[in-house]
């Protein structure tokens, strides 16, 4: 009998997604869908507002990555006003971005994905959680929480606020950094770098080798990749050019304002969320055997498209990663490995920026004057390329807004990886909690964020599976709580 399995919601990803897995008469996967609720109406809400208010307003979109929205919005405003902000202003913004990244990546590795690996993917849900990690690794847990607090305190010192940032303004940054503040920040940044190094070493010795077979098989798909690089091809997270890489490793670079020449959006009737794809592919298909136009963003994409990394420790890790997995690496669970390389890079970069002479400059902001214009601001958010595209009238009032958030880019790949994972682990109608958690692991690798649309949910909710027949009659329920 054909069955449909519904997993809702997904535990420990940031928001609310519904997974539906359809089985054929033999009990094997026929199809699958991941439904994500999209933030709706934000663009319309922004129209009619003074554009300089948007960097402050957009932090309400998402409590998970407010700094990314804040900075992308400030950059879109810079472009609308037509200003090149002072170099020191850029460095202060980048410093905040690097600190926020370290907080986020530490959280993801230890709290969200970590319990899959540290506790084990087949462990009972009651211990496969953050408190389970704290009990299994108490000394590491102390360092983790201490470094997350260091990150929050560093952001407060640099910008005044860590949760709802306001200091990136059109034209630059609103608060210079004093020398005594820099001296306070340096040992804090150093300690975060120590944890980043420890985490990379720990994962390579204790985590990744143990699960290499899972990494090599779970949810693996072949796609292109999109991310930001510097003009010299180095990894870049705050400001650069976009690079679209096809599955064979060839790529094209383009400036932010030309993203519509390279990205088109496909619509499926079963999903609110659109499916961006490579425009130059000429079409869109999520067929696992013959995908068309599919690309991925987020950590693995950034590590794949860059030619090098400017900070020395992360560069060594990149070389080792490439030696092991090639370029572009396609294994989905390598997002976790790539995330740790980025953690290391950001920790190094924060130390580097704090040691630069320019960081205490007071030349951090330029005057801006309203004009009718279009401006595109883009940053690499922890969860993928984040694009803010604004248009204003001559008074600086917003007339049009378009946002593409990181998780949206990965909509098609997430769907494909779930289908692949489901096909691998559900055979002849057999499944249990451990198997279903592996399907969730395929999603969690992408670190998707749906909190934009789902209010204040963190995803630590139980999984419930409804099993229904072809006529949608529920014939069984499986849950882990």
């Amino acid at each position, binding site marked *: 009998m054909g069955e449909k399995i519904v997993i809702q919601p997904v535990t420990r990803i940031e928001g609310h997604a519904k997974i539906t897995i359809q089985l054929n008469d033999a009990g094997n996967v026929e199809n699958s869908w991941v439904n994500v609720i999209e933030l709706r109406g934000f663009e319309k*809400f922004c129209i009619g507002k003074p554009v300089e208010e948007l960097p402050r307003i957009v932090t*309400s979109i998402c*409590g998970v990555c407010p700094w990314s929205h804040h900075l992308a919005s400030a950059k879109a405003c810079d472009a609308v006003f037509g200003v090149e902000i002072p170099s020191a202003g850029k460095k202060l913004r980048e410093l905040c971005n690097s600190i926020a990244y370290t907080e986020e990546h530490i959280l993801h590795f230890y709290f969200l994905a970590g319990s899959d690996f540290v506790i084990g993917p087949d462990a009972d849900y009651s211990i496969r959680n953050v408190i389970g990690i704290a009990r299994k690794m108490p000394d590491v847990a102390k360092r983790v929480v201490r470094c997350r607090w260091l990150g929050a305190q560093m952001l407060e010192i640099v910008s005044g606020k860590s949760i709802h940032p306001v200091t990136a303004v059109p034209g630059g940054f609103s608060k210079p950094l004093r020398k005594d503040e820099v001296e306070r920040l340096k040992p804090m940044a150093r300690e975060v770098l120590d944890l980043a190094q420890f985490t990379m070493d720990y994962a390579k010795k204790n985590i990744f080798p143990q699960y290499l077979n899972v990494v090599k098989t779970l949810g693996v798909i072949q796609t292109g990749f999109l991310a930001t690089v510097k003009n010299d091809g180095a990894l870049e997270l705050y400001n650069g050019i976009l690079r679209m890489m096809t599955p064979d490793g060839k790529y094209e670079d383009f400036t932010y304002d030309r993203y519509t020449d390279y990205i088109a959006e496909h619509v499926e009737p079963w999903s609110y969320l659109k499916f961006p794809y490579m425009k130059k592919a000429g079409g869109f298909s999520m067929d696992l055997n013959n995908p068309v136009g599919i690309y991925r963003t987020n950590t693995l994409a950034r590590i794949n498209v860059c030619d090098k990394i400017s900070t020395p420790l992360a560069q060594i890790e990149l070389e080792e990663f490439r030696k092991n997995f090639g370029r572009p690496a396609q294994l989905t669970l390598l997002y976790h490995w790539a995330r740790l390389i980025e953690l290391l890079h950001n920790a190094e970069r924060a130390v580097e920026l704090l040691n630069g002479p320019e960081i205490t400059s007071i030349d951090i902001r330029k005057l801006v004057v309203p004009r009718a214009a279009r401006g595109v601001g883009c940053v690499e958010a922890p969860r993928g390329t984040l694009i803010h595209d604004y248009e204003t009238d001559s008074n600086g009032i917003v007339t049009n807004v378009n946002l593409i958030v990181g998780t949206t880019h990965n909509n098609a790949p997430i769907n494909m990886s779930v289908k692949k994972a489901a096909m691998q682990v559900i055979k002849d109608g057999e499944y249990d909690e451990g198997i279903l958690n592996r399907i969730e692991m395929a999603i969690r690798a992408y670190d998707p964020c749906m909190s934009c649309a789902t209010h204040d949910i*963190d995803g630590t*909710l139980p999984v419930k599976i409804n099993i229904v027949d072809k006529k949608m009659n529920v014939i069984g329920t499986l849950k882990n709580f």
Partner: protein
Amino acid sequence: MDDVTLSYYIKPVLVLGCGNLLFGDDGFGPKVVEYLKENCPVPDHVAIVDAGTGVRDILFDIAISERKPRKIIIIDAMDAGKEPGEIFELDVSQIPQKKIDDFSMHQLPTSNLLRELKELCSIDVKIISVQVEHIPDVVSPGISASLVGSVRDVCEKVLKECV
């Protein structure tokens, strides 16, 4: 080693206003925090935080921190089939298991994590909630008229709990 514990984890009582100001009645929690800060005599041993949509980070950090608040008070609006504006209290252990999954668009924040904090970390977790009238599908800031009066009443309840 310096103590870098954030100030709001050090105080014995932590009040967290949860929700998204952009989505109608979902902004109730942050509204209560705003009212408490502007109009109420908050005791020194109480920390009040507008957690917005980022409450997860705070709760995760508390879960693995050596220093934890004695009590956490969550303020959050939800749809529990009551009269709009009706205030009700929940203990995490009192939430029916099936109810956790049945809150659809507006679910209790981090339900399992709250339960873990209470049962595994011995923190007194109190949830003060209000029945929503409407949570819009699209961005639309501002709480419903039926919830406006509940803001002050919830503040009074919160202050009574801050002992």
